[in-house]
């Protein structure tokens, strides 16, 4: 036929598919197929972490887990019976991208997640963990309010709003005992009954937060 033979005597390789359910057609390849199945089952037992035949798992650490928990907490797909953005404002959806940039906001978010999960589980008591996180959040907020730059940031204001959601709606703390984003008590008699962190917050919130609300906040447009 005058056709030149190419690859005569050279070793030949075949591509093997991963289709384990391939029907047997009774041809000569059947034995090879059985061998390949055996090899595949062995391979499955010792599959590496990042195999090409399954989607790889996303790398995670404490921060990404926290981020995921907050995103789940404010998910707009939740029924409005329990949905936070519908009840407290769409600005909540802009908070996840700011997490990690402010300790006050992180701590307030953490406290909100803890209280919200208990609220949704129909617990009748607030529990120790949300209270501890709330205390930590107040401490971080006080530090931010003491800093003249941080006090006027959107993150600090968002932290105050998150704590207000925690206080008024989820934990329902007595209104005479919590600082709000708009007010700060000047009554010294009232201060005596408050925890130290809240006393400081009461004093500073009127002086710092209200001017912060009066002043337009700087826009942030850069990616971080």
């Amino acid at each position, binding site marked *: 036929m005058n056709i030149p033979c190419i690859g005569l005597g050279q070793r030949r390789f075949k591509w093997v598919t991963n289709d384990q359910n391939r029907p047997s057609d009774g041809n000569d390849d059947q034995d090879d197929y059985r061998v390949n199945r055996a090899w595949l089952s062995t391979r499955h037992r010792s599959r590496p972490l990042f195999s090409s035949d399954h989607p790889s798992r996303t790398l995670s650490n404490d*921060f*990404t887990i926290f*981020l995921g928990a907050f995103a789940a907490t404010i998910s707009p797909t939740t*029924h*409005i*019976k*329990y*949905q*936070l953005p*519908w*009840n*407290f*404002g*769409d*600005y909540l959806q*802009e908070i*996840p*991208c*700011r*997490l*990690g*940039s402010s300790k006050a906001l992180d701590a307030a978010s953490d406290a909100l997640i803890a209280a919200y999960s*208990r*609220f949704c589980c*129909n*617990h*009748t*008591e*607030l529990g120790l963990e949300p209270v501890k996180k709330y205390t930590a959040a107040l401490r971080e907020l006080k530090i931010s309010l003491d800093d003249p730059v941080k006090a006027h940031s*959107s993150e600090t*204001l*968002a932290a105050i*709003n998150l704590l207000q959601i925690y206080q*008024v*709606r*989820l*934990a*329902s*703390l*007595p*209104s*005479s005992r919590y600082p709000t*984003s*708009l*007010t*700060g*008590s*000047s009554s010294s008699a009232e201060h005596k009954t408050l925890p130290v962190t809240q006393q400081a917050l009461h004093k500073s919130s*009127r002086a710092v937060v*209200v001017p912060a*609300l*009066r002043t*337009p*906040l700087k*826009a*942030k*447009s*850069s*990616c*971080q």
Partner: protein
Amino acid sequence: MRGPIVSLSSSPIQKSSTNVPNQSKIFEGLSNPQINFTDQEWEDLIEPPKAARGTPDQTMVYCFGRAPYLMSRLKAARNTPNTPPSTIRNLTVEGHALRNTARSTLEILHTRLLNIDQETVKHPHILHAHYTRMYTLGLAIVIILNCILDEFSDNFWELRDESAAFAQDIADMADEIEPYRPLGSAWIIMCLSIAWMGARDRRSRSRIEELYLDFLCDISRLCGNANLIATGSPFDLLKKNDMFQRFIGA
């Protein structure tokens, strides 16, 4: 690991201007004498997102946003000796114009609520929840404006009758929002406290008080019902407001 930060041209409060939390801040401005914002400052705070501009929701929030400053100026005029009658007259005219705007917007909100097309709308329950919320808040806002104008109006009995009817409507709305409990109905607590002011007879007020405590249980359950009385409700704050005392009949 952070994603892109969305440009925030306004504060978080501004981003939620048509939402209840923002209205609760205005409400706080009415009941807390330590908050003294001018009209412009309230306007800055409640500036709506572009999508909400020109909507009846925004008009209603705008009317509500002007209430605290109007109230503080009327109060100052009343308490200052030798205030020229023209000053009070001008403020009253301004207040009535505001009230009339809110009243006509309320009609729009009511019509909108009654005409939800259940078949063509994708999520009718969300629309119903939002329209119910805005209409009920609208009722509460008109009651507030009626309260403010009561002392300075010749036709105060009309205002009181209207407020009493609106108070009943707010109480009726509490049944409508049963499917949205516990968190999706939390806004009614604020409206019920205002409805209590608008109600004229003991029976209506008892009904509103019962509803108020019932809804308060939804959000106070983490603290237990025993603490309900200690929560310092908006009731107490409003009762202490001397501008509203004549209206309440205290």
